[in-house]
């Protein structure tokens, strides 16, 4: 091929390459991941952050601004991003939430470490941020996008993501479900209605802890509520105390009432036992039962509600104990359950049993009164009883008599257990109301400042590009095209404008190549190094993103001018060059896009 033709071909290739430069400047080797539903090119390389895994899904770009994209966690309204860079690997610290007393939590409130490691600051300050726009919530996942300033190559990075999360309805519901048992158990531990300020603050801390268990370990931001450790104690004190009282007024009644219930049960058992073992009553019942077969009127006296009352006379000692303990005649509770249970329905079982015993004792008293009372309608039935027996029976239902005392005791126990049941119900409702009140507060006012960290790096191979241009050798006044390779001593992002991210090492590269045309002369004193190509060895600096000026030596074969000398030696002549620094991979990608459409 004639030289002039090869030169034109070379110029043509150069023009084609320039024309083929990709119009969209994506990252140097960054994988672009589109996470939005539109096809709009944001103009920045994108890096997808996996917040759950606390990592990025690719090597980070360098020297160019880029965007961190990802799926915003539910409820997130703002995301702030900072990074820390080092040549050493950074163990991204896990941010511990503030702990300790209210005062300690408040002191640590909103404070975040300034450094990821000693001498490695978090930057930028303030953080790069994304804020959710309050559009109609469609329930779809929200993509966040934070634009970051260029990173440096060959660095380790730690990233810190700060989230402002508004609590969701689900979280508020979950909090309520969590808060109820926390309040329930927390209040059970309170053994006295005398509450010191320290005990009150401890209860408040428990509530904050319960909230964190639901919304995650973050810094709770709820100005003015008891969930914010910085809220002035006086602001929430009154409201909290009223709620506390609503619970404790009920709980403490249970406590002190149960303290005396054992004595009342003992009294009832003794009086029931006295009724059961009363000889006069036994004798009367036996006599009436004997006569009942022949006398329908007497049989009638032993039936219906009376039969239940009269069963108190014939029951055994075990039944007496069970009635006194309130576990008979109905239910499966054990005697000790009354003291240990916090369930209103369980206590209601005791109250019902005492009501039954009271009814039977009242009926027994009426039955006896009808038989032996001063205005007895059935006086004829007991006409044959001895005076002593009559007096003994009358004593049973008189003041201080066993039947009357047992009746009073059953009445007292029924009333007390009914009051305990009502207290437990009231306590339960007060706790539910309290949890409900806090649920509303959580939903309305609580924001959580959560932080997570992740690691990334900008380690990439040193940049190697193709070089295509012309060398001019002043000593021989020749100019030929050449092709070669530029070897940089660091990674280079060709998308980073040199005007902004210049510097010597982003421009400088060694060049090794071959000429595309012969430099041999007619006298044969200068021959090409191999075939019709000579070696190009030099260095150069990029003047623009792609135009390089170079210098170096062109290596060829040299023959002495004397025809008597046959020796061929290696000759060297200096050159200067102008070339096109060609990012081969990217250009082919651009060409591919031109012919085959967008390549993601």
């Amino acid at each position, binding site marked *: 091929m004639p030289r002039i033709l090869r030169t034109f071909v070379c110029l043509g290739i150069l023009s084609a390459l320039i024309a083929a430069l990709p119009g969209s400047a994506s990252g140097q080797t960054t994988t672009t991941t589109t996470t939005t539903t539109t096809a709009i090119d944001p103009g920045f390389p994108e890096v997808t952050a996996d917040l759950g895994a606390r990592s990025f899904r690719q090597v980070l770009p360098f020297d160019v601004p880029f965007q961190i994209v990802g799926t915003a966690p539910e409820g997130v309204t703002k995301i702030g991003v900072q990074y820390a860079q080092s040549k050493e690997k950074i163990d991204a610290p896990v941010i511990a939430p503030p702990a300790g007393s209210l005062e300690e939590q408040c002191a640590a409130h909103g404070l975040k470490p300034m450094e990821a490691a000693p001498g490695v600051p978090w930057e930028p300050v303030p953080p790069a941020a994304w804020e959710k726009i309050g559009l109609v919530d469609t329930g779809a996942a929200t993509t966040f996008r934070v634009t970051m300033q260029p990173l440096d190559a060959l660095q380790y990075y730690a990233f810190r993501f700060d989230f402002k999360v508004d609590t969701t309805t689900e979280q508020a519901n979950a909090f309520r479900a969590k808060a109820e048992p926390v309040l329930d158990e927390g209040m059970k531990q309170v053994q006295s209605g005398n509450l010191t300020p320290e005990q009150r603050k401890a209860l408040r801390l428990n509530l904050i802890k319960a909230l964190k268990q639901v919304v995650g370990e973050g810094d709770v931001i709820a100005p003015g509520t008891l969930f914010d450790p910085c809220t002035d104690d006086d602001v929430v004190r009154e409201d909290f105390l*009223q709620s506390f*009282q609503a619970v404790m007024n009920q709980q403490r009644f249970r406590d002190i009432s149960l303290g005396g219930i054992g004595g009342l049960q003992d009294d009832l058992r003794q009086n029931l036992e006295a009724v059961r073992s009363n000889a006069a009553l036994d004798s009367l019942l036996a006599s009436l039962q004997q006569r009942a077969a022949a006398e329908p009127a007497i049989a009638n006296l032993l039936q219906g509600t009376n039969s239940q009352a009269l069963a108190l006379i014939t029951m055994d000692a075990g039944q007496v104990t069970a009635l006194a303990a309130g576990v008979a005649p109905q239910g499966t509770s054990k005697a000790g359950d009354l003291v240990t249970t916090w369930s209103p329905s369980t206590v209601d079982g005791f109250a019902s049993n005492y009501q039954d015993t009271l009814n039977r004792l009242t009926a027994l008293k009426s039955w006896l009164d009808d038989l032996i009372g001063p205005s007895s309608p059935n006086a004829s039935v007991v006409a044959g009883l001895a005076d002593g027996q009559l007096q003994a029976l009358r004593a049973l239902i008189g003041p201080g008599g066993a039947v009357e005392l047992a009746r009073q005791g059953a*009445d007292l126990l029924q*009333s007390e257990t009914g*009051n305990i049941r009502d207290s437990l119900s009231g306590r339960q409702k007060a706790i539910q109301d309290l949890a409900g009140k806090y649920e509303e507060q959580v939903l309305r006012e609580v924001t959580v400042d959560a932080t997570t960290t992740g690691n990334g790096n900008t380690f990439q191979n040193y940049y190697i590009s193709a070089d295509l241009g012309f060398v001019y050798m002043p000593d021989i006044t020749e100019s030929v095209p050449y092709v070669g390779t530029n070897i940089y001593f660091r990674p280079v992002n060709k998308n980073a404008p040199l005007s902004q991210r210049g510097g010597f090492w982003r421009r400088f590269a060694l060049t090794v190549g071959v000429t595309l045309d012969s430099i041999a002369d007619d006298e044969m004193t200068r021959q090409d190094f191999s075939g019709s190509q000579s070696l190009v060895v030099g260095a150069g600096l990029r003047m623009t993103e792609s135009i390089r000026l170079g210098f170096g030596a062109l290596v060829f074969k040299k023959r002495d001018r004397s025809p008597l000398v046959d020796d061929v030696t290696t000759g060297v002549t200096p050159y200067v060059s102008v070339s096109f620094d060609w990012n081969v991979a990217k250009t082919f990608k651009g060409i591919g896009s031109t012919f085959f459409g967008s390549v993601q």
Partner: protein
Amino acid sequence: MAVIIVGRLAAQPGGIRLNPPETVRLTQSLRTNTGVAEDVQIVYDLDASHNVWFATPQGPSKTIQTLRSVPASPQNFFDDVTFIQAPGAVVDVFEIVQTICDPACRMRDIVTVHIII
């Protein structure tokens, strides 16, 4: 012989200031189950450790007493008690423990009052 609590002890207001001393009305409904009215002694106690005391003509006290005649039908009773601050630990809430002696002192009731600051 047996006084029954029909309506539990309540305090109105539920929160007071101690300085100057404030009065709380304690309300309760009682009946007796003996069929006839009973005279009973009512004792109110405060915990010895804290700084809330009853104000009495004799000075601060941790206990006060009163007599009542409780009928067979439920009846509401009122006791106005005044509290003052005296030596003791600071509390946010204190409880008033009531013991009903008929004459056995087995029935008890309780109510809490909080301190307004």
